[in-house]
């Protein structure tokens, strides 16, 4: 588990949103069971994804929005860095 005082970095990590989107869109609604190695438990795939990784299928829409947001965010900073910092000028 990520320590609580570091969890803010989880939420501002772009890769975390990628993984959330990939895993929850593929496995977040699967109801067949999976055998969890080491514990012997037999939960549904969607419940396992929720308890182990904390991913909820209902959050998929938000994840999609944030993924678009990251691309827009980096692009905007790039455009303004080119405009105002002038490191790339010939």
């Amino acid at each position, binding site marked *: 588990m*990520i320590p609580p005082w570091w969890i803010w970095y989880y939420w501002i990590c*772009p890769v975390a949103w990628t993984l959330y989107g990939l895993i929850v869109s593929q496995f977040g609604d699967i109801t067949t069971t999976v055998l969890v190695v080491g514990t012997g438990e037999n939960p549904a795939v969607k419940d396992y994804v929720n308890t182990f990784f904390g991913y909820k299928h209902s959050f998929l829409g938000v994840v*999609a929005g944030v993924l678009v947001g990251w691309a827009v965010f980096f692009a905007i900073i*790039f*455009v303004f860095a080119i*405009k105002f910092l002038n*490191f790339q000028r010939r």
Partner: protein
Amino acid sequence: MCLLFFARLQVLIEVPYVLIQASAYALITYSMIGFEWTAAKFFWFLFVLYFSLISFTFYGMMMVALTPNSQLAQIVASFFYALFNLFSGFLIPKPVSFSLWQSSIPFAPNCCHALKSKALVFPSVDLELFF
């Protein structure tokens, strides 16, 4: 040449290019991994992949634009790559239940004292509930 125009063109050219890359990658990997063959799931896969690829493209472009030379850009960018991987929630899963109140306990001495005194007065109260 107008710099803003030039910069916006550099962003725009990536949009179709990365779409082609992501489509080729998604078609090959999705069929090989053996995910469920539904249109919705495939397009979700493609969507997440496309926006991840394009945001990393823009991230790299941003780092180059923010730093004076490519060496510095590489150093700063790879510093954050390491952090991204560590905090992506795969190596260390995120906790399921988290409240701001929990995280504030170590920084709030009064709160700790209050909980300790409560533990002295009511020893039967389960303090694990609070931590």
